[in-house]
């Protein structure tokens, strides 16, 4: 069995078809007719672009806009006047043939990118390699390896598959892809995912072990490749694949539905968002809104602070993209443990319990007000809910609300419109907040329970510390009682309490959260459908009736046993 990196999920079974790149060597010939050489180059470049643009259209239809643009970008490079200038310069000054001149220019850029430290940038050299061999092949009249003609049930095995090759891929014939090189973000990985062909990359020893025609199982979930599998292995993988397919189909059926428990209780289901790029995906699964939009990305990986304008643009985009659906945007939640060069955190012994999140913001009012101003300005573009992180006391909440009121006054003076009814909520992730939730609930419009941090602080165990990581368990009765405190506190003031930590997507925790009375769950985009499907099999009245009994259990293990025994049967696995 070979080990690689999973690049595209699924199980592919087929026969190995070896794809070897042809080495194209540029001849080094002195020429006398320079004009002719330039014309030859221009004609080859035009032919290249024609081919590529045709492929780009086809790719755009099957694979998608992004991949098609990459192919089109290759064409743009080949038709770039700057490139032609460099090629012609060599033809003129060295009296060399067009192939040599072009080869030299490509090598210059290939060398430029491979010498860079960043892995992502080195990948650009592969693009130039691809352009080089393809254009040289055209000029020299060499046929390139075409993937359209592989037999059905082929597993392609190659060092790498270039974008211009990948566009000729026929998905009905290719069961799987295995490459020696590459990462999850290589072109071939992106294309494999778009075409839903299982793929494993970075299989270093592939050429030692795999021969043409051998039967292979490509496990794109784990990154394993089985060579000449036994009948028993074949049967097992085929069953696994069938179960997965059935389950995926079933989940797709939940796309347009609303979220209800088995006995008809409506549960809110929203998506968590960390980057703007995933916005379009959110729209597909009929979520109730965005339950947690993390704003840290605006501050991280840069030396300067994000301006009010920059933040405003980002917040407005999210709000507009979600139409009138609620968007919960959490204010800056970072601390000394994160790499944020733009902010200045003092050296702390204990950053997890230090000046972070709301505490940092309340100590740096100017910074905080910039974010609040941007949020309020954006509030007229949609349904904004402002969420304050790591609240431990009512005083902190009141201070934050005072700042919000100040910002509103300033906007009034400047005549800048905002939504005065913007909802403000508190995260419940500290034990203090959970225990005194009834007091906090009187100050805000909603709660969002951060189960991961709440678990950490309640059990006083740092999950990144190997010595105690085993103690970290949201199912522990202590944590469950904390969550109950939070939800009961919310109920006293008739405000909603949502769960936004990892537990919200944990299929074993969900029945408990439902039983505790959570109004809604906010989960990662990839979990939305699975959570909706599970909720449809969870009986609210049952779990509501049993929750007090569960809270009397003494260990996390006992809770788990109870849940497992009463969990509605899993659809797959």
């Amino acid at each position, binding site marked *: 069995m070979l080990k690689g990196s999973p690049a595209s999920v699924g199980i592919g079974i087929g026969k190995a078809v070896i794809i070897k790149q042809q080495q194209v060597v540029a001849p080094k010939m002195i020429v006398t007719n320079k004009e002719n050489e330039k014309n030859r180059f221009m004609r080859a470049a035009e032919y290249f672009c024609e081919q590529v643009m045709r492929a780009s259209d086809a790719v755009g239809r099957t694979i998608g806009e*992004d991949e098609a*643009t*990459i192919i*089109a*970008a*290759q064409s*743009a*490079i080949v038709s*770039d*006047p*700057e*490139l032609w200038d460099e090629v012609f310069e060599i033809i003129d000054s060295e009296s060399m043939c067009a192939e040599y001149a072009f080869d030299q220019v490509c090598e210059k*850029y290939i060398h*430029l*990118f491979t010498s*860079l430290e*960043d892995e*992502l*940038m080195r990948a*650009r050299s592969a*693009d130039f390699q691809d352009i080089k061999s393809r254009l040289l092949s055209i000029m020299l009249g060499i046929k390139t390896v075409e993937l359209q003609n592989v037999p059905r049930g082929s597993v392609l095995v190659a060092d790498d598959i270039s974008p211009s090759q990948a566009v000729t891929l026929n998905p009905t014939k290719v069961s799987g892809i295995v490459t020696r090189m590459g990462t999850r973000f290589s072109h071939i990985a992106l294309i494999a995912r778009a075409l839903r062909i299982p793929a494993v990359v970075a299989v270093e020893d592939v050429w030692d072990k795999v021969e043409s025609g051998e039967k292979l199982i490509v496990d794109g979930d784990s990154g394993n490749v089985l060579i000449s599998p036994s009948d028993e292995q074949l049967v097992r993988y085929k069953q696994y694949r069938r179960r997965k397919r059935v389950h995926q189909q079933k989940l797709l059926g939940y796309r347009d539905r609303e979220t209800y428990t088995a006995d008809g209780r409506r549960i809110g289901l929203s998506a968590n968002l960390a*980057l*703007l*790029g*995933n916005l379009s995906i959110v729209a597909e699964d009929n979520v109730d809104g965005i339950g947690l939009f993390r704003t840290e*990305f605006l501050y991280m*990986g*840069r*030396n*300067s602070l994000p301006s009010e*304008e*920059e933040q405003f*643009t980002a917040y407005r*985009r999210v709000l507009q993209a979600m139409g009138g659906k609620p968007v919960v945007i959490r204010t800056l939640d970072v601390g000394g443990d994160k790499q944020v060069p733009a902010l200045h955190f003092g050296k702390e012994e204990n950053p997890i319990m230090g000046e972070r999140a709301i505490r940092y913001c309340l100590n740096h009012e100017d910074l905080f007000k910039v974010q609040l101003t941007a949020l309020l300005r954006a509030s007229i573009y949609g349904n904004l809910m402002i969420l304050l992180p790591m609240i431990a006391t009512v005083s902190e909440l009141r201070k934050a609300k005072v700042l919000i009121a100040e910002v509103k006054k300033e906007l009034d003076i400047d005549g800048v419109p905002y939504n005065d009814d913007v909802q403000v909520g508190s995260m419940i992730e500290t034990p203090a907040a959970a225990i005194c939730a009834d007091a906090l609930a009187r100050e805000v419009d909603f709660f969002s329970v951060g189960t991961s941090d709440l678990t950490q602080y309640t059990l006083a165990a740092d999950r990144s510390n190997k010595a105690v990581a085993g103690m970290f368990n949201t199912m522990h009765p202590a944590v469950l009682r904390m969550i109950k405190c939070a939800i009961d506190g919310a109920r006293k003031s008739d405000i909603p309490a949502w769960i936004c930590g990892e537990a919200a997507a944990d299929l074993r925790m969900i029945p408990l959260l439902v039983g505790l009375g959570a109004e809604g769950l906010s989960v990662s985009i990839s979990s939305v459908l699975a959570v909706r499907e599970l909720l449809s099999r969870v009986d609210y009245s049952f779990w509501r009736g049993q929750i007090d009994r569960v809270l009397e259990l003494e260990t996390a293990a006992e809770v788990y046993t109870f849940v497992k025994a009463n969990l509605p049967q899993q659809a797959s696995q």
Partner: protein
Amino acid sequence: MQSRQFTVRNPWGVHLRPAYVLANHMRGFESKTDIVLDSGRYNAKSVLKILAACICPGNLIAMEISGPDEKEAMEEASRLFEVELEEK
């Protein structure tokens, strides 16, 4: 001449797609459009040159635009840098 600075967050500078998008948009203007870094000036209408600039995340880059439609071109460049290109 218009000049403005931008901080690049995502590694769009060395992705083919954003380089292509930027070059395409800048080609629509008459003005000369350049990305200016310590390492030199790079023609922002050329995919090749944008890539050759090897722009990394966190870089502060300057756009210099001069010509009859320089104002519109800078508006467009700003929009691309601050919004569209930051998409993954």
